[in-house]
């Protein structure tokens, strides 16, 4: 599991849970606790290898306890114990994958795991978070793989900003479209890791031109989501490794702006998926 996989799975869990159960910052401290793992991304990585094992065990235990609490039940976003379990999954998974993960080569398997994690949300919103734990455990076991050396490349910040703007659209369905859309998106990304597909990748400026019309989601989801995934995959492959910080911030900035636009602010109706 790479850091990207972790991020998308934890984000998937948060998105599924918050869209379905509404996480309000006015609800109390518990709303902030679930965000701790995202803040932990900025903390320098730990040097002690045992922490990776501890992280994987923590993620596994928290995931099972969290899922047991929500089995046939619903998430009370004001309950601190549930928020702590959620944060435990995130921090544990993060500890397990931190070392050199930004230099680890991304595999098709990473994206298939993200896709499968999102699809698990169709069974239960807890599904994607539950997928983090085994993936984190395997990350510890699979640590022997040598880290990838630095790869020169570009920083496709603007392109990733637009991808960030587009990606959350299906989530606002508050229903199954979010999970289906993002799973299809991840499959689209995965398809670009097939050797012959890599040769087809267009240059970044052309990618940006193609992505911008997709920000307004006018195509059917089953076309729109894999197409966006395909373009995202081509963009990610051309990015430098380790991941350029500007590109990461651009992606997160796009996600946050999209979140703001699609929430109750209703700033631009045009940008809302499916509104007529």
């Amino acid at each position, binding site marked *: 599991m790479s850091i990207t996989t972790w991020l998308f799975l934890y984000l998937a869990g948060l998105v599924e849970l918050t869209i*379905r*159960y*509404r996480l*309000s910052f006015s609800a109390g401290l518990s709303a902030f606790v679930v965000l701790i793992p995202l803040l932990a991304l900025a903390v320098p990585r730990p040097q002690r290898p045992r922490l990776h094992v501890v992280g994987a065990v923590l993620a*596994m235990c928290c*995931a*099972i306890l969290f*899922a*047991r609490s929500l*089995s*046939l*039940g*619903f*998430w*009370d*976003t004001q309950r601190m114990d549930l928020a702590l379990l959620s944060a435990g999954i995130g921090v544990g998974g993060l500890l397990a994958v931190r070392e050199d993960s930004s230099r680890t080569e991304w*595999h098709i*398997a990473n994206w298939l*795991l993200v896709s499968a994690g999102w699809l*698990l949300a*169709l*069974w*239960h919103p*807890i599904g994607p978070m*539950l*997928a983090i*734990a*085994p*993936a984190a*455990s*395997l990350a510890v*076991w*699979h640590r*022997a*793989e040598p880290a990838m050396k630095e790869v020169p490349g570009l920083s496709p910040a603007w392109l990733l900003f637009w991808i960030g703007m587009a990606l959350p659209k299906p989530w*606002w*369905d*508050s*229903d*199954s*479209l979010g999970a289906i859309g993002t799973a299809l998106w991840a499959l689209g990304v995965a398809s670009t890791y097939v050797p012959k597909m890599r040769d087809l990748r267009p240059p970044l400026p052309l990618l940006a031109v193609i992505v911008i019309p997709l920000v307004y989601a006018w195509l059917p*989801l089953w076309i729109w989501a894999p197409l966006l995934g395909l373009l995202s995959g081509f963009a990610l492959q051309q990015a430098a490794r380790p991941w350029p910080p500007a590109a990461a911030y651009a992606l997160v900035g796009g996600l946050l702006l999209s979140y703001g636009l*699609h*929430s*109750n602010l*209703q700033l631009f*109706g045009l940008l*809302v*998926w*499916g*509104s*007529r």
Partner: protein
Amino acid sequence: MQPSSSKRRGAMLGVLLTPTLLALSIVAAGWPLQVRVVSPRLGTPWIGRPGAMLEVRLATSLPFVLPAFDLSLQGPGGTARLQETARRWEGADAVLSMSLPELPDGGYSLRLRTKAQNVLLPKAVFLRRAWPSVLRLVQIADLPPPGREPLMQRFVEEMRVKQPDAVLVTGDINYKGTESNIDFIHAQLARLDAPVIMTAGNHEREAWHRYLRVFGARDHRTEFGPLVILSVDSAHGRDALTPSTFRWLQRELNRLDGRTAIIQIHHPIFAPGPAATSEAGGTGGYLRGYRRAFLELCRRHDVSIVLSGHWHQDAVFDQQGAFRTDRVDFPGTKYVVTTALGADVRNVFEQSPLRHGYRWIEFVDGQLASYSSDPHNPVPSEALGAP
């Protein structure tokens, strides 16, 4: 061993171990096997004649595995076990077709027994052998918040006297989102003799887990003799229908089979317009996303009436969106907003009186005949007194 072969073996093991670990996690999370009745239950009841097929939707703690179970109906007319005749899976839910036993007409509780569970869901199933020519529905919205419990109790007492055929609850049931309040509302509604058909309002999202636990489904269809009541969730935070909800509504309206459609949706469809003195007391609150498509659907399927709440004041619109104060028996779909049953009343419109109340709606031979404040068939909204 060659490094590439070791790498390939590692990858293969990863591919095998990840789903295995995931499956073990799912089993650890869902064991021992339990089920939850999604529907029917109070709020999403099933209404029909004995001998018809009752659909019971069950969520399971382990995907696609059902434990041994026993379902029965219990009520004043007796107790009878339900026989399963067919089973299918919709998403992760099991949908069971059960044959309804010969019991007297009336409301029944659904009892579910498994090895680990014994659950009783009050007023989940209603048996009716015949449908009268005149059907009387009551619509309420914006229920009394904590501290005004007597208003709710008085409403229930009044309905036990007036005996409507069904009570439609159009959202904002649980102000403050507390456990005790939603349990109180549930207990009061369970005292009614009529089926209660529920849709969620924006206040339900303050404690969404409680609403789902107590009342169940978001969007649902209730077949009610010559009527089909479609309860639509508009209150997920954006005052809009989502693509999934809109498609669900389209599908349901496409299979009316000659029945008359009623839609209940918490948010009013139209903006208050020039008659407004405020925009719903500052809550915003009318349908935004999908409004044009929603209106077109109602026109095409000849929806008789669209019932809303949210503004805490009565209002009637025609299908052009004109605020109607002249008459309410105009042609086309009626877009009706009903005052609060117990939450604070508001002064959205100057023209409309401020009072708590409910709406009384009558259908004759499956056609909308009157609704309270109708000048030709006046059945006034009941003033329940100041809070």
